[in-house]
């Protein structure tokens, strides 16, 4: 066919990371993480200890689950769900109340998942019915939720000695018990998102809303499904949170937001939607959870860590921008 020789890849740009294919960014991220670990280990050999491993993996657990929830929203074109802190505390409060009532673990988990899903559904319903920007809606619902939670309670914690209290303090195979659900979630979600029909449609909606609609994919349905699922994952995170965090107040989850967003960006999830590999959240969350620990080993005063957190977000955004410019 006359066409064949002329329409070819000449105008196109090749793969971004030659030789590594799609796994290039993942390997780069893992490499940066390993360099950080190696450098700190050289400076302070006692960094490479089981204690450090526990400290880092505990920190990863809650952020990791929230990052999956956040990434699902971003990939499907919802940009960001800023209502995660309120959703987490709300689900956490339900979990605590169920624990106080002496309910067994499965009931606590179901209660948390259902509460989180309901929170996500409320957000999605407002977004879909009012046709509003998800960022604005979730910013507002987070604010409202926080204010309402302050009216509901001041401090809450799961009772000492209950199964969930133990769950937040024990280790399993040398790692925190609360770490395993996070790792499993990243694995499973990362596998299913690009390989299922619903997942691919969610990605399509994020990549090009008009195109998805023109191909018969329903935007409202996708949005409601994603926000509800994402909310349920926030509920899961709340189980890990109340299990491990002890007494908390309505504002106690706010500090997670920045880390979660930075993790999502650093993992290469496009905030514009349509692109993102959930598996990369593992090195991304791991890297960002390791940094504060290394700072302590390098002897930086604790107030510096807050400053550093801000820098990390800037770094993540800059890294993403660099990647986007290099991308075809």
């Amino acid at each position, binding site marked *: 066919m006359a066409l064949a020789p002329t329409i070819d890849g000449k105008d196109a740009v090749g793969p971004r990371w030659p030789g590594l294919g*799609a796994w290039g960014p993942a390997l780069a991220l893992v490499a940066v993480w390993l360099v950080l670990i190696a450098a700190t280990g050289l400076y302070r050999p006692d960094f490479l200890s089981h204690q450090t491993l526990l400290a880092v993996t505990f920190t990863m657990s809650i952020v990791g689950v929230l990052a999956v929830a956040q990434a699902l929203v971003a990939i499907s074109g919802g940009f960001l769900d800023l209502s995660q802190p309120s959703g987490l505390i709300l689900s956490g409060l339900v979990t605590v109340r169920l624990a106080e009532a002496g309910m067994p673990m499965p009931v606590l988990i179901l209660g948390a998942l259902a509460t989180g899903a309901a929170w996500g559904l409320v957000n999605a319903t407002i977004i879909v019915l009012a046709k509003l920007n998800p960022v604005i809606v979730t910013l507002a619902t987070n604010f409202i939720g926080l204010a309402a939670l302050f009216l509901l309670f001041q401090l809450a914690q799961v009772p000492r000695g209950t199964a969930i209290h133990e769950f937040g303090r024990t280790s399993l195979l040398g790692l925190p018990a609360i770490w395993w659900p996070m790792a499993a979630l990243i694995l499973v979600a990362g596998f299913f998102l690009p390989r*299922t029909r619903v997942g691919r449609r969610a990605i399509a909606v994020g990549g090009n809303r008009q195109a998805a609609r023109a*191909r*018969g994919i329903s935007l409202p349905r996708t949005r409601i499904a994603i926000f509800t699922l994402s909310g349920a994952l926030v509920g899961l995170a709340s189980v890990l949170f109340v299990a491990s965090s002890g007494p908390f107040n309505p504002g106690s989850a706010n500090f997670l937001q920045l880390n979660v967003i930075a993790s999502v960006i650093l993992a290469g999830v496009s905030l514009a939607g349509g692109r993102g590999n959930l598996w990369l959240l593992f090195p991304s969350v791991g890297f960002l959870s390791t940094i504060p620990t290394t700072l302590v080993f390098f002897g930086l005063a604790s107030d510096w860590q807050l400053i550093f957190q801000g820098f990390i977000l800037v770094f993540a955004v800059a890294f993403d921008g660099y990647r986007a410019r290099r991308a075809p």
Partner: protein
Amino acid sequence: MFAAAHPSVHHRFNEGPFIRGTHVDKSVKFGLHPKYESPDPNMDHMTVQDTCRGNGAALQTEMSPVLEASHVAKRYGAVVALHDASFSLQHKEVHGLVGDNGAGKSTFLKILSGVVAADAGTIAVDGQTIHMRGPQDAMDAGIETVYQDLALVDTMTAYQNVYLGREELSRNPVKRWLNLVDDRLMRRRAAEVLSSLAVRIPSDNVPVKSMSGGQRQCLAIARALLWGRRIVILDEPTAALGVRETEQVLEVIRDLRKHDVSVIVVSHNMQQLMSIADRVTVMRLGRTIATRSVRETEIPEIVGLITGAIPGDLREERTAEPATP
């Protein structure tokens, strides 16, 4: 040979009542495209090889139209976008739709593709009236539209775009239950339809945004071809392309006849249209005013019809009749 090649024609399209009294006769339905179910590009090779340009339609004029729009009208508030548009598309015909800005082309096109609901008039595919409630209804009736924006997801690969919204689930019951898709099948079929169009796509693992404009246009056409069992609508397919790529895309459009579909092309470029179309319908001020066989007309006549320098064939009261040449 037709009957042998299209065994499933009868039991699908003899169902349902005759619509609107058009001269539908069972005997002439054999020309219809056979691909009702999930497309199998292999079947393309079983269809009539018709490489002659411009004369394919002549054979078909005796037959019932694949698509027939009658007295379609649309108003937006006080503004009448479409007064009265009627149009018939023959099997394996490339039919140009031209008109000045504001003539109603794009409204008409949106109605045909189900994006906009008409206030009045009917649209029939193979003699069956279609109730268009949305793009899905048009797609279900075998009408695929390639818009100017192409409706491609830039971050996805070629085959993923081809199967966008119609992802094939795995045949393995467990995987199917898990909602897992069959990538190998989709990749293979997409590759087949792309190669049947002679479109070279860099790699299945490269996102669409890294492709050239021509490649993207051809990909969108290939997708329409795979899913548009009877009708493909192309909206300004070359508007965004350079000279070289335009020629490539035009070649692909000419080739579409081989694939047993009928094509509606909306374009501003008269020369291009005359080089690919069998017939051209002219719209002016919200009405379809004339249809000409490309072989029997010249560009100046079409331009005259567009501008109003030459009056249309039909009186306003008579626009109901399909303007067959």
